[in-house]
């Protein structure tokens, strides 16, 4: 199978990287779309999840939207946004991807806040902490490992899914795979796949590193290979961490 050899040849040609609509330009746009989507999702999901987690309301809601979002094909939502008046602007894929980045951040942050030891919260209250202090200085730091897991899951998912935007109008790295299929050139197809998979794995590694750095002490166990399984049999209803292939 010389498709893999052809792929290496394609990737070795500097012109394929630097030309207009080349690898570098597509990768840059891929990252811009992904970054905007994750940013918007965080702006929406984090405050909401902190409030829900702090008050303990809405557990069924966060689990519910996590489960429902799994059933909705990302490609379908990308397509629906692409045929709205937003159409071919960068905002169609950005908003579609942001929609899918919300549930993992919401669910993980919520569970992170709920899992903070009630005794610790009581003690903080007894020490005279205000609600703001309690949230900022006690609950948030203790929930941070799970919050970071949520952000990492969301970001990896968005970078992976941004690939699909290339099937519609978005100029992301998936465009290389698509043009390879269009020309029936499996070398280009595989080259695109290597780039896309590489970027997704790189995102995972970078974010795992960041969450390891910002998480102090014992709770630092959020390296990817120790990630929790998709559903644990005990208390599966409480602890649903969204983790879906894209």
């Amino acid at each position, binding site marked *: 199978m010389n498709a893999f050899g052809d792929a290496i040849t394609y990737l070795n040609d500097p012109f394929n990287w630097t030309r207009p609509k080349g690898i570098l330009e597509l990768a840059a746009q891929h990252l811009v779309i992904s970054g905007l989507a994750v940013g918007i999702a965080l702006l929406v999901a984090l405050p909401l999840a902190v409030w829900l987690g702090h008050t303990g309301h809405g557990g069924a809601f966060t689990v519910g939207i996590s489960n429902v979002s799994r059933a909705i094909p990302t490609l379908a939502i990308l397509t629906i946004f692409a045929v709205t008046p937003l159409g071919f602007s960068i905002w169609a894929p950005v908003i579609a991807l942001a929609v899918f980045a919300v549930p993992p951040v919401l669910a993980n942050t919520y569970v992170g806040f709920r899992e903070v030891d009630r005794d610790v919260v009581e003690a903080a209250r007894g020490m005279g902490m205000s609600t703001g202090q309690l949230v900022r200085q006690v609950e948030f730091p203790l929930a941070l490992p799970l919050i970071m897991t949520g952000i990492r899951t969301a970001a990896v998912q968005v970078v*992976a899914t941004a690939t699909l935007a290339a099937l519609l109008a978005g100029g992301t790295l998936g465009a290389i795979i698509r043009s*390879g*299929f269009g020309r029936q050139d499996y070398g280009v197809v595989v080259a695109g796949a290597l780039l896309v998979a590489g970027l997704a794995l790189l995102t995972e590694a970078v974010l795992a590193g960041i969450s390891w750095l910002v998480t102090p002490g014992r709770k630092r166990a959020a390296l990817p290979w120790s990630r929790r399984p998709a559903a644990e049999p005990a208390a599966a209803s409480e602890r649903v961490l969204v983790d879906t*292939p894209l």
Partner: protein
Amino acid sequence: MGLPGSAAALASANGLVLAVEEAPNPWFDGSWAVDNWSTIMPLLGQHVRLTVISVLLGAVIALPLALLARRSRFLTGPVLGLSTIVYTIPSLAMFAFISPFTGLSETTVIIGLVLYSLVILVRNFLVGLQSVPPDVREAARGMGYGSGRLFLRVELPLALPAFLAGLRIATVSTVALVTVGVIVGQGGLGQLIIVNGFGANYYRPPIVFGTLACVVLALVADQLLALAGRVATPWTRARSAS
């Protein structure tokens, strides 16, 4: 109004480019689904077929892998680590990697989907097997159960709820992922969304219909599996009723 899809058909037939705003392009059009039933049914059939085959094959491969991973602590890490890597690879790239070997066929899609469902199932099967209390295992051994009978009569029933949870997640994810198979022309309802909708002058009825059909299919499959789970594990029902 004219026939559904006529705007797109006209545009391609005459080489005209119609502005999207000028052609009738409603979000919902029930008559589109009725008129195009003969297009929809084979694609729905393909969607169901790809999902069932992929999840079943995934389960058949996942069980021995989970048993192997449990047997030796040495293998647990690599099995879970490798599965995380597989999971991180975007589906479009996965199908692209497989396509040089199997071309634009359903096999390409099935191999990719089996890999993803495998990852979900191995993790959940492993959790299920590990959730069997060691005391129970000891007691069964003390009663003279061999390892085969121990697995079938004791461990499997106790791990069944976790297995079923995994099967439900894998099935729902797979239903959604089949749509990406459109890249090799085998995307089930994804064909409706991309080819009949987006590719046909951004015609909305097939896009919305395809999306809704995917979601309904996923939810129905999920509920069927939940029902099967309740039938297969009557003791959990008794526990929750008491």
